[in-house]
């Protein structure tokens, strides 16, 4: 009764949603490794990305240019992150502060509440759906919504771009150096405060991209980032905080486990399979698949 075809279909759809989860997790991990903080407002940047996508498609570019709107949404969240970081996050490092983690937690949760309230104030508690011109596509033997296929393709392109920037450019070299040792990077003449702003902006832009890509599927409303953020943090536990491969592999793993569970066990419990995986990892490797033991917060 369980055909190979169903298994392959399930694996494919699991990987496809997994790369989108990985975007969120990568954003969280990347900001953590450079700026040394957890950004609890990641879901709200996802939400910002989805709203920008809707507004740009509905009022400016139209459904045929949905792909251009994706780029606008990503760039928009990047810019918002780049402008907010010096105001909200920089004081954490620039001033001699005793409880940096507490500061970051309070500030980003305040930001979360503010952005949600802003979304309700402007757009109301309604759901919107940005249109696309994408037809049903065939992935192997499997018919899928075009938006879902293209979301995965865009996510893969974004991950490749991210890798290129990190491994091949000067700014990537500086980011890798700062992630390993902030003080040494600073004494080498690297302006780590500027890197913080760039890293924060890249991290939230990844969330904004995920929001824009998933908007046609999961819709646009003030709290739409919550579920994906939870997935992001599940992946962090699975892959290990601060690990980029952990975020990517953890994301795909989570997507596949959820799809397999939904297809072969029972679909209403889809989210529970992810939590079961998290519990399993916590039992076997509490620091995550790629995490380092005893890492400082």
């Amino acid at each position, binding site marked *: 009764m369980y055909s190979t075809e169903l298994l392959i279909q399930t694996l494919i759809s699991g990987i496809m949603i997994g790369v989108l989860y990985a975007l969120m997790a990568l954003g969280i991990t990347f900001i953590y490794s450079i700026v040394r903080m957890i950004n609890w407002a990641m879901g709200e940047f996802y939400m910002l990305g989805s709203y920008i996508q809707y507004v740009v498609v509905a009022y400016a570019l139209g459904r045929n240019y949905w792909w251009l709107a994706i780029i606008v949404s990503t760039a928009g969240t990047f810019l918002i992150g780049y402008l907010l970081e010096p105001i909200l996050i920089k004081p954490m490092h620039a001033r001699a502060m005793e409880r940096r983690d507490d500061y970051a937690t309070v500030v980003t949760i305040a930001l979360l509440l503010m952005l949600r309230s802003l979304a309700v104030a402007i757009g109301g508690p309604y759901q919107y759906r940005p249109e696309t011109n994408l037809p049903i596509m065939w992935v192997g033997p499997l018919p899928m919504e075009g938006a879902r296929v293209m979301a995965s393709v865009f996510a893969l392109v974004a991950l490749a771009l991210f890798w290129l920037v990190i491994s091949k450019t000067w700014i990537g*070299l*500086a980011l*890798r*150096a700062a992630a390993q040792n902030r*003080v*040494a990077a*600073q*004494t*080498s*003449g690297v302006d780590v405060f500027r890197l913080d702003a760039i890293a924060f902006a890249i991290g939230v832009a990844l969330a904004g991209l995920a929001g824009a890509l998933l908007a046609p599927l999961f819709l646009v409303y003030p709290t739409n980032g919550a579920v994906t953020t939870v997935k992001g943090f599940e992946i962090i536990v699975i892959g290990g905080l601060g690990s980029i491969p952990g975020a990517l592999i953890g994301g795909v793993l989570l997507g596949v486990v959820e799809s397999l569970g939904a297809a072969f066990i029972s679909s209403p419990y889809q989210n529970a399979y992810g939590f079961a995986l998290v519990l399993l990892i916590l039992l076997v490797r509490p620091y995550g698949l790629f995490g380092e033991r005893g890492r400082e917060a």
Partner: protein
Amino acid sequence: MTNGLTKRYGGLTANDAVAMALAAGEIRGLIGPNGAGKTTFVNVITGIERPDSGHITLDGAAVTGFAPHLIAARGLVRSFQVARVFGNLTVRENLMVPYFASERTRGTAEGVARIGELLRLSTLAALADELAKSLSGGQRMLLQACAGFMIPGVKVHVLDEPFAGINPVVKDTLIELILKENREGATFLIVSHEMDIIRRICPRVTVMIAGKVAAEGPLEEIARREDVVTAYLGRSLQ
């Protein structure tokens, strides 16, 4: 260069009105018993910590309380007692970071040539594409010093215990590098317990005891002063 520099940690005054002036082009030794406040002094003048009072000037310009990257940009850089290299970058990338951090020199051909020269002089050339975390302690010290030499426009290098725990061959390589950079105009402040090396390369030394400057002058002269010897050994050598 510094005047009345004071740093307190709670009730402990680690640096008490320290005054020191380095002449351009000299190699100054900074010695003193453990806990004398040498590393605190280095942290304060390089911007890692802010002084509670006092002034720091570099080439006549005030740099008191500046962030480390700004002090580095004005020409004063340091090495750390426990070498801070970027373990997951290659040796070559470690040397690229400081050079490319400066917008003036980013992407110029001189940088590549300079990296090659330092790799050769430091005997690290064969390891250029290895990750820095695979290096030995001494090799890390060399790499850290070379990374400091890569920063464009540096006038003063502050080296905190560069010779601690490294083998004699690496020590000699490091000394050669220091002397070469010095001939090309760089000023050095070297914190060290290795009196042999200090005697060889530092014409003048400053002695810190209990957070204060206790003596300054040629090492031979200072070694005859009873208060200095007492501080080191607990009693005089009679």
